């Protein structure tokens, strides 16, 4: 246990043991903090119910073999109690979003077919080129170091802004921007190299890029598939 957070660990242990005075102090000090975190996670107030449920688990309403089981027993003091509480809240919020996404209905079949007709190219050669591109991109991303991949994930998958991406990586927004640009360039060079290694000449490599750029149908299809995910994304990129 880190001595840095010894006071937090002590408070958590006393709360877990049912010390009412400790619990009162905890509520007084941490309830506003937890609500503020909930409001930051979902400004509409949707995360507050998670914060309330968290209180019940922290207090230890559930019992096992006659013993009160408090969530506090999982706090080991590797961080401040406040950060740990926010982490638990973030974990529960993300899991709830993913759970809801699982039950999200798929678009209507007719709508899907219409999207498919309008979006998918009929040119089989173009489809092959785009597939080659995607394979090359996947392989190029896989050879990046984990920090670069995490940055890409925050920006492209979680759709965070540059500032938010920088905060996750603990780097300045401008640094995140520069690193993303550098990584994109590295991926492009790697893709070009891989395409050439697979036997394509410069002209065919250019065709691959052109096919991927004009493959709006496939990209649209991808967006359609991930549309729900985008809508349910935990973090709104525009904020």
């Amino acid at each position: 246990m880190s001595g840095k957070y010894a006071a937090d660990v002590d408070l958590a242990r006393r709360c877990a043991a049912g010390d009412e005075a400790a619990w009162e102090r905890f509520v007084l000090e941490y309830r506003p903090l937890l609500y503020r975190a909930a409001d930051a996670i979902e400004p509409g107030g949707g995360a507050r119910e998670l914060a309330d449920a968290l209180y019940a688990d922290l207090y230890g309403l559930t019992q096992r073999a006659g013993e009160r089981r408090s969530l506090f027993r999982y706090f080991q003091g590797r961080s401040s109690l406040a950060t740990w509480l926010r982490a638990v809240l973030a974990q529960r919020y993300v899991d709830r979003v993913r759970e809801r996404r699982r039950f999200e209905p798929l678009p209507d079949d007719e709508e899907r077919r219409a999207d498919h007709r309008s979006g998918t190219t009929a040119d089989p050669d173009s489809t092959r080129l785009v597939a080659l591109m995607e394979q090359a991109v996947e392989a190029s991303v896989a050879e990046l170091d984990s920090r670069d991949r995490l940055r890409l994930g925050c920006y492209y998958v979680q759709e965070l802004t540059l500032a938010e991406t920088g905060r996750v990586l603990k780097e300045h927004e401008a640094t995140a921007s520069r690193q993303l640009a550098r990584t994109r360039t590295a991926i492009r060079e790697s893709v070009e190299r891989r395409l050439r290694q697979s036997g394509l000449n410069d002209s065919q490599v250019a065709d691959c890029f052109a096919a991927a750029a004009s493959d709006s149908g496939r990209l649209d299809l991808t967006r359609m598939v991930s549309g729900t995910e985008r809508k349910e994304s935990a973090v709104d990129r525009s904020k």
Partner: protein
Amino acid sequence: MNNPNEDRDTTIDHLLGSTLKRGARADPAGACLDAETLAAWADDGLDRQERAAVEAHAAGCERCQAMMATLSRAEHAHAAATVVNRPARRFPALAWLIPVTAIAAAMLVWIAVPQRAPTVLHEDPAQAATAVTIPPAAPAAPSSAAEAVTPPAEPEAVQKNSPQREAGRSQLESSNARADQPEALEKQRDDLRAKDAQLADRSAALTSGAAATGSVTADALASNKATTANETVAQKSAAAPAAASPAAARSLRNATASAPGTTIVSSNPGSRWRIVPGGAVQHTADGGSTWETQQTGSTVTLAAGSSPSPSVCWLVGPVATVLLSTDARTWRRIALPEQADLVGVSATDDRTATVSFADGRTLTTTDAGVSWQR
């Protein structure tokens, strides 16, 4: 025509969105981050290897990325709220601006508030025609909201029968009366010179102590100005010629903070303490109309005090003497880890105080003297 590489980078940009989403859906290697690890990652509580492992997992795990992003947003909101509540901690390098701004504000108040009528002091018949104006104490010395000023040491009967604000005038009259007695006046002048020399030495230590505490308010300073103008004018009649110069005025001002006879004014000016020789103090709860003598248990004359509220007062003195009253009646002695003469104290409440040694060192307690930190 755009640079072809830029066009291709744009294409890569488009492809990354879809490719990474597909890749992130696949189950990554290793278990997802638990809240403990996630929090430690956010608080920089992981070593290099652990951090690398966390980032390696999260790089391919959409769930953990989402948790990191969500936690980051909550942490950011918390940090923003902390900045609003505690701007000085957010920018510790600018903390020095607080006392500087307070001093500047006090100077403005000093200039803006009309000066009192100059006091004319007559030392002896030969000097009766010479009028000397003693400048009011300038705003720099007090180290807390409660300031210390030095009234004249008055006989008990005088203290009880005349209001505090009349003390200066009484002393002035007394001084004028003594002007007819050259020998007595000469003796008083010598005594005051000796005191001034002693107090000038203490003032240097006080100044460094006050600088260490760094909490000066404009109100306190303004109050200091007014009270000092009221209460210290007559006492320093012998030193008046010297006080006409800025350096002498500074010396005079600092001296008032620690001499026996020091008055400690609380946040409510009606409640004050006055240090008297022999370790006792006097307290007034009615702005100086009546004074009650209190025994503190100390036998040495105390040096300075600080009263952050009407019922709380800290006193310090020689040989590590620290006394605290929380009811404005009784005093308890507080142990100090170092045995040396104390010359100043600055308190913010009944638990938090900073004491200053004569050599400029300071000790701070935040638990009513149970422990002290440098």
